[in-house]
């Protein structure tokens, strides 16, 4: 006798503890097994691209803070690079270094949240994420010291940064650089070799190289699949060609690889930070830029390696004080394209895990 079963539809999100925001997945399940899945977005759509068309070039920077709210500094940097490229604004040496320091600190902060949330999705009850948030808190303190905010920094400007870093910043950074490697090692001890984590995440949600390239994946998702592609190396922006660092890659492209790539990237970011700390020169922190920037007619695309992947800004100027068109190439949006392929056939528990390993920020997907 065969039992007649039929699949049922389960709504995961928009209010669900581990959809990292207001993501929604309409999952069709056969028992515990995911048969089909459809991602649905739009719950956090604020129309940032449209809003940007009505603001001055400087006034868009607070909007970019709100794209991927876990890596505002990187967003600021990406946007400012685009405006500088468009308007031909030079950036002083010292400002370049400050920017690199901020961007790399931001990468560590963002990866801490990504790794912590991923481990929390595995079911390690709150512990990893609390540890990670503690470390992130130290970075946020540094950001707070520099720009007065903990989440929406609005620190970088076309032509430099808004303010000189305070005197106590560099000693604090030194302290952070001294402590952080030890903490990363300790968190590796916590769950890196844990049998249950290995059983849960090895071989789960394997993203093949072909698929990764086809879906335009970027960042740790792409590198987790074993493709050595990092914008900092492939197309060095700012002053990244001066630093030595490795590009960690995974081998198979499963959840575990993506998790390890993020942890290794934190280590590499620390290396960059050490070098930048040593080399930072004196001088101006901002070049002379008119209050209202009027770039010549034209268009440009500037991209950076944000923590989540390739963040690009496509700006079109019509020689007015506001961008004619400001398109954001959001890494999260492209990374979720493969969700359906990765999740089908796995259990509902893996669905959460694979989603967690993608490290998604809804502010960026919906914009």
């Amino acid at each position, binding site marked *: 006798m065969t039992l007649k079963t039929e699949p049922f539809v389960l709504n995961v999100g928009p209010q669900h503890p581990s959809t990292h925001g207001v993501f929604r997945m309409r999952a069709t399940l056969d028992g515990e097994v995911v048969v089909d899945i459809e991602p649905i977005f739009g719950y956090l759509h604020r129309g940032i691209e449209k809003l940007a068309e009505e603001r001055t070039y400087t006034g868009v920077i607070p909007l970019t803070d709100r794209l991927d709210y876990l890596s505002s500094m990187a967003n600021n940097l990406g946007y400012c690079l685009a405006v500088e490229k468009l308007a031909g604004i030079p950036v002083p040496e010292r400002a370049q270094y400050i920017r690199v320091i901020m961007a790399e600190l931001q990468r560590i902060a963002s990866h801490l949240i990504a790794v912590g949330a991923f481990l929390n999705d595995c079911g390690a009850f709150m512990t990893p994420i609390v540890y990670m948030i503690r470390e992130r808190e130290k970075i946020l303190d540094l950001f707070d010291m520099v720009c007065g905010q903990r989440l929406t920094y609005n620190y970088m400007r076309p032509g430099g940064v808004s303010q000189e870093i305070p005197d106590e910043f560099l000693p604090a950074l030194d302290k952070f650089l001294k402590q952080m490697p030890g903490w990363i090692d300790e968190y590796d001890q916590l769950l890196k070799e844990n049998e249950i984590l290995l059983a849960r995440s090895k071989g789960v949600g394997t993203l093949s190289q072909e698929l990764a390239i086809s879906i335009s994946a970027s960042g740790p998702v792409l590198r987790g699949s074993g493709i050595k592609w990092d914008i900092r190396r*492939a*197309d060095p922006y700012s002053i990244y060609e001066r630093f030595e660092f490795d590009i960690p890659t995974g081998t198979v492209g499963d959840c575990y690889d993506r998790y390890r790539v993020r942890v290794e990237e934190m280590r590499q970011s620390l290396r960059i930070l050490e070098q930048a700390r040593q080399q930072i020169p004196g001088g101006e922190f901002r070049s002379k830029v008119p209050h209202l920037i009027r770039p010549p007619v034209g268009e440009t695309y500037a991209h950076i390696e944000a923590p989540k992947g390739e963040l*690009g800004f496509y700006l079109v100027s019509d020689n007015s004080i506001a961008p004619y068109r400001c398109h954001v190439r959001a890494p999260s949006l492209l990374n979720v394209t493969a969700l359906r392929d990765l999740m089908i056939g796995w259990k509902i528990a893996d669905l959460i895990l694979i989603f967690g390993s993608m490290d998604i920020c809804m502010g960026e997907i919906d914009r």
Partner: protein
Amino acid sequence: MTLALPVKDTAQRIGEHFADAVTEVTDGAVIVKSEALFQVAEYLKTNPDFDLNYLTHITAVDYFDYFEIIYQLTSLNNNHSLLLKTRCYDRDKPVVPSVVGLWRGADFQEREIYDLMGISFKGHPNLKRIVMWDGFDGHPLRKDYL
């Protein structure tokens, strides 16, 4: 450094394969006819000289007279990139061939453009609104949407 492919040469090579596909060559971009877009894109992707296997992003700009759809293509192996554009002069029913068949990454981006700019992509497997709700009136990113 990611090398921007020289547009003139590229346009010429495209022209060799697809007569009058290229309508214009601007500073840094190759503009092709929207009818020939898919074939040109396929050629650029599969030809080993170009090998533009990575679609960095797609976007669309509303210039009132026409819509410009921009494809930023990158080759991960050769580390060069090309800006491919197409134009769409019909304002009421703009249609452009979809490139989802070549790059899966175009899926959500084309849906987004359809949603916000109102350009439909012929051949897209699941063309429906992505960020606005179904039944929303208008396309917010158009310049005449207020």
